[in-house]
């Protein structure tokens, strides 16, 4: 599958995530949109890893592991996302306990 399709697809998903962050006020949904963006990047990395792998195979040579780092990077991104979500949701729950809302527009008390 041509790599342009993958880039266009992942970029579209990424931009949908950006639009979500900009247009929603619910902190949880904003956080979910960020997960969507991370997934777009993951797909992109896997596609690139397969692309480089195919190129290395075409260049001759057996047992090439070119591209393996792309997939491992995706694995680490997933690990980090899980950790980030656990702390992030704890903070959002704490915010809900304080102001009884998850609306990001309530966050306006810090100013000069």
């Amino acid at each position, binding site marked *: 599958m041509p790599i342009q399709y993958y880039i266009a697809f992942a970029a579209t998903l990424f931009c949908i995530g950006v639009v979500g*962050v900009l247009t929603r006020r619910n902190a949880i949904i904003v956080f979910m949109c960020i997960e969507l963006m991370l997934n777009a990047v993951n797909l992109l990395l896997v596609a690139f890893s397969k692309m480089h792998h195919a190129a290395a195979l075409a260049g001759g040579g057996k047992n090439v592991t070119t591209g393996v780092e792309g997939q491992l990077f995706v694995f680490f991104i997933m690990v980090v996302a899980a950790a980030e979500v656990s702390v992030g949701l704890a*903070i959002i729950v704490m915010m809900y306990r304080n102001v009884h809302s998850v609306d990001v527009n309530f966050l306006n008390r810090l100013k000069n």
Partner: protein
Amino acid sequence: MTEQQLMALLPFMVLAAASIVIILLIAFRQGHTVIQVTGFLLMCLVIFAMWYVRGVLPQTIAPLLIVDGFGALFTGLIVFCVLVVGLFSYIYFEEREENPREYYILIFLSTLGAAILTISRHFMSFFIGLELLSISLYALIAYLRTRNNAIEAGIKYLVLAALTSAFLLFGMALIYMETGSMDFAVIAQRLNAAGKSSALFLTGFGVMMVAVGFKLALVPFHLWAADVYQGAPSPVASFIATVSKVGVFAVFLRFCQELHLQNNSAVMMLISAVAILSMISGNILALRQQNLKRLLAYSSIAHFGYLLVAFLPGNNTGVEAAVFYLTAYAITILAAFGIIILLSPGEKDADSLSMYRGLFWDKPFMAIVLTVALLSLAGIPLTAGFIGKFYVLTAGVEQRAWLPVIVLVITSVIGLYYYLRIISTIFADSPVTIQKERSLNQFFYTASYAALVVLTLLLFGIGVMPAVIIQGIKQFLVIDR
């Protein structure tokens, strides 16, 4: 992995072990004092470990890490900052009658993240170090969760940091597509082989700059800085201003050095534009601030703008200037925050400028330390800040980056205005508004005072005899080249 490589990683392992030791101390129900003293000794142990392994450097731990003089220099700066921040934290939390035991675990883990950034030479360690730093910071910023709008600051930092790390990854993916590697050295090789820098690489770098700009609070990604500095506990704010920024700057500098981005005119245009914008808006936003913590936030935006000017040349002079400037900046900011922490009464932080009116007549020692710190931030001769700024200016002139240099000089003059405004407030003749009684552990109070004295002496020492420090920096930097 060979024995020598393990040896080179020893300081980082000690840093990781420090957090485990603290967890064990909490499990055995030790008090704040014990944890604080142990933490301090463990940080000293990290410095000792760095001294102990100096012989085996440089070591490359393929494919992710490289422990060289550059990394050791920045790690040393980071650990020094953490030592001071840890010392000030005791007074701050005792004052609030909190029991901040987990605080020290998070501080050490976050420091480990920053330290990993300084020695990483691969996107993977870059990303994981950055996330270790920021995930611990989310919890640290929101640590005093019922006061001071800390949760608000925490959410702002959380959402923006998560968003920008997604951008960072997108940029990394594009560069990976272009070069087929995540190793800085290999990326440099492939880019050189290709001859010209492609649009793909430039887009990737530009998208990555969003995340780096966010972490260093550069304009236009600076909107979080003032709110987070104000809402976070003061020791955490000083941690963000020093440790987190030093770590991210170190890895960014290493990335650009390896790739020789200084030869790339498009990238240089981008960085000078960001530097100029940061210098101008940081100083202008600080002009009318009535809140000292917010003012320091804006001032640090401007200072990282100055620092980027040192970054432009890309030769060893630039790196030396950057390291020197960062050292001077870290010491100064720590001294300023130290005063805020020591003056903060029980409930609120002493961040309103009106609280400092006439401070000199009540607490002359603190007033003098704060004055020296502000003079150094403004870049007055005889202080470390002046030499730092001078060094940066020299590096910029050498490169003939005239526009950033001119903006640097002009904005420094603007900056002088608001620093002097605070100083005149401190020396104003009026009744003191900070009321504060102490019934604290006298020992730690004295220790914090001693730390402030050391910081002030360092500011003057570096200002008067910069050659000693510069020689030291040069000796470290030759370890890898």
